[in-house]
């Protein structure tokens, strides 16, 4: 019964769609007389329905398209029509048939033989090329095009007469130095302006730092500073201030011309920052987002300070309604009293100073001994007190500071201090070279993937004469990489390399 209904609808459809119904069709329109052609079409239709059931789309349309399209066969595309290519080929046999009854049929597909357009209404194949995936050569060409377009945009809309950016970074060798410094280095490598990177290293110039910054390809000035970083954050901040002043003295000696900005090695900078600081005339201030990671072990305090935890604290210039500098947003350290970290490897939150150095930029001519148009509100660098907390101490009058980043509303850099803690566990496979003086056998067996001839160096050490943790040979580098991959399935052992003791020296 279903089949007869299908027949009826099939016949109806045919008479509707073919305007000039020819002879053979009229006879089958009442459905009673069954000529061999009609039976054949019925059987074919039933077959198509079964195939459609299997494949999931209306197959009969495809059949009609292929059978009854007329001489403008340029529209019959040999494109693979999803999965039905092989089925289409089997039906080619039947294309011979419509030559007889085909004359009386007229598919509404082609109806513009009067005009010689190559566009045809009706169903078209969906063209898919044999390997529809990206071609790496073309991807590279597209990136070059994008690069060229962006360069043109910079020329047209970007900063005119860009000045050199002089970046001052205090650093020292420690566990996370590579992590932090690589981040800053990559940011600086992306800056589209001329750059001079002054790296001041506590404890003197070291080979690790030199090797690291050499990879950047930037023009670097690597300066050593004779003191070592002390153990407490308070002292460390003071020492870093002194290191930055030392860098400013280098700027003065070499008469570097440009804009001085302070990029601490653990901070994060956005590229818009470097565009924005080009707008500074003499002394500018930007907003710094402070990322203080809260210590989750303290539940009650978290509930209390939950509203404050939502918003990120920001340090920077505050403007009044006429966009003039009215004051400063500083960090509110009251909620963290008593919970803040004192020593560098403590678990507590590390707090910033009232106003961080990294939020200020200055024109390097302010530091020169003899610049023609140096304003008179700047103090001479040599007469500066060594204990200055922020570059504001260079100014006699803090109201000349220019607020940048739409008056401090845009945050373009983020301050963060993260150092290895006393209870940090390090990925296995770190090798200490040269080997440490005192070694203690570990309680558990070495890693299963490590070769058995692993030297028994990565053990707990109590007192160390030399604080070198991060020497890596090529062999260990690969092992470190493979072991980092398997970090999640690594068993924790009792081996803990403690860096605290190294830094004490």
């Amino acid at each position, binding site marked *: 019964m279903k089949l007869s209904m299908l027949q009826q609808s099939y016949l109806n459809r045919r008479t509707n769609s073919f305007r000039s119904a020819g002879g053979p069709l009229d006879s089958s329109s009442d459905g009673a007389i069954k000529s061999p052609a009609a039976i054949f079409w019925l059987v074919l239709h039933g077959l198509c329905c079964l195939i459609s059931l299997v494949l999931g789309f209306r197959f009969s349309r495809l059949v009609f398209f292929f059978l009854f399209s007329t001489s403008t066969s340029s529209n019959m595309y040999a494109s693979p029509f999803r999965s039905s290519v092989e089925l289409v080929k089997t039906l080619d046999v039947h294309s011979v048939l419509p030559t007889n009854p085909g004359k009386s049929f007229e598919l509404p597909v082609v*109806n513009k033989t009067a005009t010689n357009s190559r566009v045809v209404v009706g169903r078209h194949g*969906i063209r898919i090329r044999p390997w529809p995936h*990206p*071609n790496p050569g073309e991807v590279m060409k597209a990136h070059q095009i994008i690069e060229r377009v*962006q360069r043109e945009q910079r020329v047209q809309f970007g900063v005119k007469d860009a000045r050199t950016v002089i970046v001052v970074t205090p650093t020292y060798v420690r566990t996370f130095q590579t992590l932090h410094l690589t981040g800053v280095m990559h940011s600086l490598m992306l800056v589209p302006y001329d750059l001079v990177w002054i790296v001041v290293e506590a404890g003197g110039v070291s080979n690790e730092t030199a090797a690291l910054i050499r990879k950047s390809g930037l023009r670097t000035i690597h300066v050593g500073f004779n003191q070592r970083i002390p153990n407490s954050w308070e002292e460390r901040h003071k020492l870093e201030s002194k290191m930055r002043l030392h860098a400013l003295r280098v700027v003065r000696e070499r008469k570097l011309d440009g804009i001085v900005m302070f990029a601490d090695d653990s901070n994060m900078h956005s590229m818009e920052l470097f565009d924005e600081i080009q707008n500074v005339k003499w002394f500018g201030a930007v907003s710094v987002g402070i990322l203080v990671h809260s210590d989750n072990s303290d539940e009650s305090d978290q509930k209390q300070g939950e509203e404050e935890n939502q918003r990120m604290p920001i340090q920077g210039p505050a403007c009044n309604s006429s966009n003039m500098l009215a004051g400063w947003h500083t960090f509110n350290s009251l909620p963290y009293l008593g919970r803040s970290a004192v020593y560098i490897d403590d678990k507590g939150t590390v707090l910033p100073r009232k106003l961080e150095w990294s939020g200020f930029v200055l024109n390097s001519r302010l530091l020169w001994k003899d610049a023609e148009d140096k304003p008179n509100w700047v103090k001479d660098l040599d007469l500066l007190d060594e204990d200055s907390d922020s570059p504001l101490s260079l100014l006699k009058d803090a109201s000349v500071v220019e607020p940048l980043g739409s008056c401090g509303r845009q945050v373009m850099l983020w301050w963060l201090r993260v150092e290895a803690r006393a209870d940090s566990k390090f990925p296995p496979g770190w090798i200490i070279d040269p080997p440490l003086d005192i070694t203690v056998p570990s309680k558990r067996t070495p890693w299963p993937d490590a070769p058995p001839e692993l030297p028994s160096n990565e053990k707990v050490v109590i007192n160390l004469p030399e604080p070198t943790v991060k020497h890596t040979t090529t062999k260990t580098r690969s092992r470190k990489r493979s072991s980092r991959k398997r970090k999640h399935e690594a068993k924790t052992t009792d081996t803990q390399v403690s860096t605290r003791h190294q830094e004490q020296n």
Partner: protein
Amino acid sequence: MRVWRWVFVGVLVAAFVLRIGAFKLGRSHHTERISGSAGDVLEDDPVGRLKVFVYELPSKYNKKILQKDPRCLTHMFAAEIFMHRFLLSSPVRTLNPEEADWFYTPVYTTCDLTPNGLPLPFKSPRMMRSAIQLISSNWPYWNRTEGADHFFVVPHDFGACFHYQEEKAIERKILPLLQRATLVQTFGQRNHVCLKEGSITIPPYAPPQKMHTHLIPEKTPRSIFVYFRGLFYDVGNDPEGGYYARGARAAVWENFKDNPLFDISTEHPTTYYEDMQRAVFCLCPLGWAPWSPRLVEAVIFGCIPVIIADEIVLPFADAIPWEEIGVFVDEKDVPNLDTILTSIPPEVILRKQRLLANPSMKQAMLFPQPAQPGDAFHQVLNGLARKLPHDNTVYLKPGEKILNWTAGPVGDLKPW
């Protein structure tokens, strides 16, 4: 004598300096003048070049229809309504029909909307016929020329064929009564029944205020290579694909869905306009009809339009050299779209961007309220002005009749 020599040297130096100045100006100038086949006509002022008489039709043809459904003011066919409003208060309008060059009939044929907002064209032929009967019986100007100096705005899918399905539209052909009139329509495809010779193609209506509120700073770097948001398969009407967009949109999806250079999807993001301003190329493939508002959006936002529609006629084609501004890709070349786009030399791309940055180009695509110089209204009038003066075949001899008032499907002859 010596004085003259020094004057000569001074003039030479001045010329040299001025030349350098001109050089520098040329290089930093980031737009370029646009001149199409009709010349540098984008900024022409039509006032004084033509006169238009607006027929006063009863409000059932225009105001009452709009009152019934105010959505007609914001959809992409709103040009017919705004054209009427513009002409009513334009200096081009004349109240004396004897001195008019062109006659305008304000009948809103596209304002019969479904609940979803799509226009139904079924009553439009009758509406148009009824309007023409009215003007031919109340004024002598229609019979004088049988409509050859009249123009009508028919912004529907296939223009004056008054149907949304292409097969049916081709079947109906252009309304017989409009055989001699000038049609102002969005549809344009060469060698198509529904595009009359001498028609003026206009862009679809896109809301200017909405687009201008989504502008982002020009220095934002363009980081998307190809951008497109829209349907690839019309699941409701053509689930397997092949009919919709002649299979071109489906081909784009199947070939480039995993290509990182192509940011294409069917989502409706709220940052659509902002994303277009961050893209280098914007795809403008055909849908059920070859035109789409994407072209207007691409031009406004400075994104080079990649037009995938065979034989399409773009808006104001005689005033705007689209070949130099957009990239035309044949539908059969869609599988090689990435090769085509990446092999365009960067200088050509930069030049296209400079042409797109020309403010007169952007202005020509918009229908701002109130009208501004150089906008699409003025381009339509310029196009009409370029067709002047009318030649002799426009005016019929007395007693001569060309139009067949009873031609067309029987349903169209019923009064509206």
